[in-house]
């Protein structure tokens, strides 16, 4: 197990395959049935790129995910908390993850997770209406969005404008097929670039998530 080029993310090379891990802040607990590796006094949870788009982006070679220990994170579309749990490992006990999702059924699993992990704050709300949770969260250093909505870019920009600090970083997992099934992904992506750049955000890096997720693009932006 060695530190990878990305903060708080560890890696292991086995033959041709590269495995990623995060150091668990809560020992003796797996979140979604992932493999756990014990080394020294620490416990490392394997990060599955099929289940987590952030992990897929790292394996596809991004040099930096701009997420640091102690960061405050706004996570839109948290679902049951697979990726959230790894983000929670990365920011550590000093950071905080505000996890927003609209579906009560998946929120249930997230509540169980956040009862164990004190740095995950579950918020049952609609990310399309950021003003509805103004009283429930604070400004953040980092915005992560993974919602399969037609207007996902609009949602992303609205939340960034309201909650992301100046100079903060934002990641958006663009799902071409939910924005427009009939268009070619490349066309959809171009439309997304335009929309983001028009808002004054800077796109630093883009990364296709093939072969882990089809027709997905991870965009790294700076506010």
């Amino acid at each position, binding site marked *: 197990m060695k530190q990878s080029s990305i903060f708080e993310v560890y890696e292991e090379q086995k033959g041709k395959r590269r495995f990623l891990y995060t150091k668990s802040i809560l020992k003796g607990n797996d979140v979604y049935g992932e493999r756990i590796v014990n080394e020294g006094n620490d416990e490392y949870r394997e990060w599955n790129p099929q289940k987590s788009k952030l992990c897929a982006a790292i394996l596809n070679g991004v040099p930096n995910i701009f997420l640091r220990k102690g960061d*405050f994170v706004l996570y839109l579309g948290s679902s049951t908390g697979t990726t959230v749990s790894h983000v929670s490992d990365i920011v550590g006990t000093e950071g905080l993850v*505000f996890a927003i999702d609209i579906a009560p059924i998946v929120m249930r699993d997230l509540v169980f997770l956040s009862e164990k992990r*004190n740095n995950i*704050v*579950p918020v049952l709300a609609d990310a399309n209406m950021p003003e509805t949770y103004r009283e*429930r969260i604070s*400004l953040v250093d980092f915005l992560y969005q993974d919602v399969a909505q037609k207007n996902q870019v609009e949602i992303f920009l609205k939340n960034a404008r309201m*909650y992301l600090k100046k100079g903060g970083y934002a990641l958006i997992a663009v799902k071409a097929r939910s924005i427009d099934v009939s268009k070619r992904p490349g066309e959809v992506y171009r439309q997304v670039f335009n929309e983001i750049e028009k808002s004054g955000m800077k796109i630093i890096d883009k990364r296709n998530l093939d072969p882990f997720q089809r027709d997905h693009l991870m965009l790294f932006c700076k506010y």
Partner: protein
Amino acid sequence: MSYIFSNILGTFIIDNNLKIIDRVVYQHASDEKRLLLKHGAVKPDNDALKSILGVFKDRAYSEKFHSINLELTKAGIRDSVTDEFLVIEAVHAIDDITKVSNTLMKRFRGWYALQNPEYEHSETDNEILLGNVLKANTVKKEKISMGAHFSKEDIEPVMELGEKIRVLYRLRSSQEKYLDGVMGRLCPNVSEVAGALIGARLLVHARSLRRLAMMPASTIQLLGAEQALFRHMRTGARAPRHGLIVAHPLLVSAPQKMHGKIARGLADKIAIAAKVDYFRGKFIGNKLREELEKKFAA
């Protein structure tokens, strides 16, 4: 100048340098007013709001954010459970029970036919067959039968299986009765026009009463026939006439020729009923149904 800002942590008075100069933890509307009067603070505009939100980006508040949001979210999940969820679960339960009881019934028939194939062959209704076989001395074996002679020991497990299947049939009918009740409460009009089970299936397919109410009648007519509809659009095959509503008594008893017309009329009335139900109007289900029956009376 100072700003007043309230969130789940409390109500705060924040000055120009973004320092908190006064606070009330666990706000009430009256607290906010009192602080407002005391400091003559103003509500922040959008620019100021962002810097104020930044004040709370502090580890000191993490624990409070966590615990209060956890409670609020739990309450939110609790309140999100509506009658629609109950209908969805009940419909799925009924479908599961039907599937399981049919599978077991097939096994029961095969097993029982070893000793009395003639009767098993002659009775096609599962529930009647089961009832008669389980009641002692009602089923007589033919004089010259293909059935083997079973010892008491060998009959017992067959009958035990039959008993359990009968329990499943009873469970199904009691769940249907329950579904009737919930549907009557949630959408009495749809339930009256379409019938509780079909109405519930439509509701499950539409995912919520709101979405069902917003649907045009032509969509409701073809709910559940998506595969056929898209095949029609793609290849020009014949268009489907009905989806889930095919099981409605009006359609079951009608001649094939009339199916399209009846399905359209029925879907129209269901669409009206769903809208009335969603906006909590009066009960007009019986009127809608009578109109339908009069129009399509054979």
